[in-house]
């Protein structure tokens, strides 16, 4: 990696100030950024480490019942602490990467990076979560703006992610055999006002909601309800692990399985 300055702010305010500098970049758990730096594919002048900020860590329950996850909370903590409140979210977090990734990687880092094959974007979009930053609240529907692109401004830190807890939910991930990221992952959540279906891994546009499936499942929450649907392969990712047609097919299979798993 190239040389850089490492800043370890003690408070959120200090972190915000540090990120105001030119070529400064936030460092969450570093599970994507550090390998990128090691390969010399990025050269930030300054890294602002968020992992020391206690105020960004932990899982709590809001008055309205939402599960609130601090932006710098590692996946392993979510897997443990959200299990009683939002099992589908905890299960998703507990199956990201390997133990090293889960103990270092953070929810804020994952959402800010918005890797098109990451799991967390599916949970956030599928739950209609609110991404809270130092400046504002952003609805998940507005947050994800395409592969590796989000509504975040430069230097804007994710402080918390608020997940409304659904009646039922499940996540199904079909792993890419090498990276074990999602070749396709589908998060299905049933709320009293309807069903949300969020798909990761499949689309050139990053995580997306499958509107037709949501409509069908809102009327009939069963795998059979989507039997007649199909997805257009046009916008799907094609690579050495799967063709666009295969991914479109998997979205449907996994959606059905997620509905079944949600019970």
């Amino acid at each position: 990696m190239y040389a850089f300055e490492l800043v370890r702010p003690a408070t959120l305010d200090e972190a915000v100030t540090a990120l105001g500098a030119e070529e400064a970049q936030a460092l969450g758990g570093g599970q994507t950024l550090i390998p990128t730096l090691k390969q010399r594919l990025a050269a930030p002048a300054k890294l602002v480490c968020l992992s020391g900020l206690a105020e960004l860590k932990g899982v709590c329950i809001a008055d309205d019942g939402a599960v609130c996850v601090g932006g710098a909370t590692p996946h392993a903590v979510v897997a443990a602490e959200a299990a009683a409140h939002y099992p589908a979210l905890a299960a998703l977090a507990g199956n990201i990467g390997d133990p090293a990734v889960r103990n270092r990687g953070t929810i804020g880092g994952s959402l800010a990076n918005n890797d098109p094959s990451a799991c967390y974007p599916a949970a956030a979009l599928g739950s209609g979560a609110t991404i809270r930053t130092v400046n504002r609240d952003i609805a998940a529907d507005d947050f994800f703006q395409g592969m590796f692109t989000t509504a975040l401004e430069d230097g804007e830190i994710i402080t918390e992610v608020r997940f409304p807890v659904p009646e039922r939910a499940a996540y199904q991930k079909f792993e890419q055999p090498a990276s074990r990221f999602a070749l396709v992952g589908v998060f299905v959540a049933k709320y009293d006002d309807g069903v949300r279906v969020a798909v990761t891994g499949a689309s050139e546009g990053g995580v997306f909601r499958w509107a037709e499936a949501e409509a069908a499942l809102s009327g009939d929450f069963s795998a059979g309800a989507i039997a007649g649907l199909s997805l257009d392969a046009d916008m799907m990712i094609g690579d050495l692990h799967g063709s666009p047609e295969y991914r479109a097919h998997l979205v449907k299979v996994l959606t059905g399985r997620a509905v079944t798993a949600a019970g």
Partner: protein
Amino acid sequence: MPKDHGIGASTKRREDVRFLTGRGRYTDDINLPGQAHACFVRSQVAHGRLNGVNTDAAAGMPGVIRVFTAGDFERVGGLPCGWQVTDRFGAVMQEPGHPVLATGKVRHVGDPIALVVAETYDQARDAAEAVVVDIEELEPVLDMKAALAEGAPKVHDELTSNLCYDWGFVEENREAVNKAFETAHHVTTLDLVNQRLVPNAMEPRVAIGDYDFATDDSTLYTTSQNPHVIRLLMGAFVLGIPEHKLRVVAPDVGGGFGSKIFHYAEEAAVTFAARHLRRPVKWTCTRSESFVTDAQGRDHVTRIELALDAEGHFQAIRTETYANMGAYLSTFAPSIPTWLHGTLMAGNYRTPLIYVNVKAVFTNTVPVDAYRGAGRPEATFQLERVIDKAAREMGMDPVELRRKNFITQFPYATPVAVEYDTGDYNATMDKLLEIADVAGFEARLAESKARGKLRGLGVNCYIEACGIAPSHLVGQLGARAGLYESATVRVNATGGLVVMTGSHSHGQGHETSFAQVVADMIGIPDNMVEIVHGDTANTPMGMGTYGSRSLAVGGSAMVKATNKIIAKARKIAAHLMEASPEDIELKDGRFTVAGTDKSVAWGDVTLAAYVPHNYPLDEIEPGLEETAFYDPNNFTYPAGAYACEVEVDPETGKVTVERFAAADDFGNIVNPMIVDGQVHGGIAQGIGQALLETTTYDEYGQLLSGSYMDYAMPRASDVPFYAVDHSCQTPCTHNPLGVKGCGEAGAIGSPPAVVNAVVDALQRAGHSHITHIDMPLTPSRVWAAMQG
């Protein structure tokens, strides 16, 4: 009762104590005083004219000691190729130059262009990025058939085409084979790809050059399977250093699988740089570099045809294979698709007529050379796949079709130039059906069906030619080296032994199994024998470890040397007991005068050899040390039968290996536990090839699967527990241990078993149009096949 020591005992591996406690000493653990660090500037493009290399900026950067470019290596030789193949028209292969640093052109992504040496690795890397390379990009040659088309761009301008050779074997049989196909009752044809694999040894390559200007001695520490071969190739052909002034050390090596046989440019470059700079120069390969510089494996595109009579007897086999050489000829590359592939096309079967055609092709890709099995997996895969297809077409049971054609009389001379000394293919097949519980398959099939899964069973055989190799034979076939092995047995005064072998252990457990053999011969505890390997300074000239040769060839040399020791010790014992040497018996570490209670211990004799006070000095020399070389007079032929059961998810195409069984005949076994481990590892590699591993270049020659984000290695969860048996033993008839070798069998026998099983599952589910799917059988490919 199982033995607890010596030959036949499952002795725990003594080397594992250091490997498992972090006490191994690998090349990268070596740091020499005053050591400088190297980083290579490599081509980012697959094919281009190298118009200039500007090192001005790099040379002035912090810590930089020297930047070497191709011009510095002008008076140095190129990397030699160790095998010359003669084509079917009697002409020798086209053999392009292979400079240490790219000269005139770059020919694959990763081709080294310059070498930066600096005080630290990071400084070297920074400076390497500042080297300005002027490359005029040229159209890359990637597809083998396109590479042979008229007007295709040439990888090597000085050659007439991209064809290395067009080999026919046995050329004299060509017309007879063609005729047999014209009159055959049935012909089964199969087109298939044996895909390119990246070796991925756990330890990346490392090379440290060292030079003592006061003595003019050079030393290379390197991750090699054969330090003597590297010394010979690099000393004699590249750098012009006589062998007595060059030492090559290959200490603990973390896996090779063939990829560490070859002499690589980086080894010569750091040795050259160290001599020039009078400082040690160390290079450690990054994993990313490994993907574009370690010689890769397989990469055959084949059409195989099998002619059968009405009863299913094999009449003839005809194959046409395109074999990718990559951009340069790696050390043994030309031999892999020819003499290690064509000679195995008879398999376990009586087929009177065989013709193998191989076109070896240069492309703008990483060079291809031996990888676990090396040519034999390619032969086995096509043969065992086409037999399965033929059985289906003819409505015959695939096991019965195989049995009908088994070779049952030994020795058996195949129509492809080798003579199998011994074997019993029905015995391994019987054992396989038992341990695989083939009888229970239907019940398991029903159980899978109940869960909505498809299930299939794949069975196949394999044979391999190991114990490489008879020197006189390989010399006739184009080898530029002998393939004997050596051992020096040194007995110490107090009775312990040190065995110095030319073989090299990089995971095989030689330190344990070799000691078992020698200790058993003398009748002393295994821990009285130490095995030394990996350093040309203290081991006799040997050819190293590959081709499942170490025990069969290296072990035989060790047995010969130990027999010389025993013969001399017997004379000493006879003197001590005032008896005739012919009357002396050695048992359990004691020499006894036959028929008497007079005896002396092993240690009394060894002490006498070194303290020769009461010693026949006029008849025998003091001391107890012997060297032997062993050159085999035939290959060994391990063989066996493998069975795989898979489940296929009909919705996603995902294949899971549910059961895997292997019945191998390795001849005699020294350490059953180590043999089990070798088979386990080989099967995992074969399952990896069958289901997971893909080496994909894009249209520009960039490696898309160039990291573990895209190159899928098999993990523990991808493989089942194996049923492994090696109780069927027909000992090799021509080496003293009766051993055949077990290092490659798993990787050779398992890919067709997996593919046969998947095709079987799909056929049973009504996908009758699916007769083959090319490896790796990824979910995407299997699903696509099911769509028709």
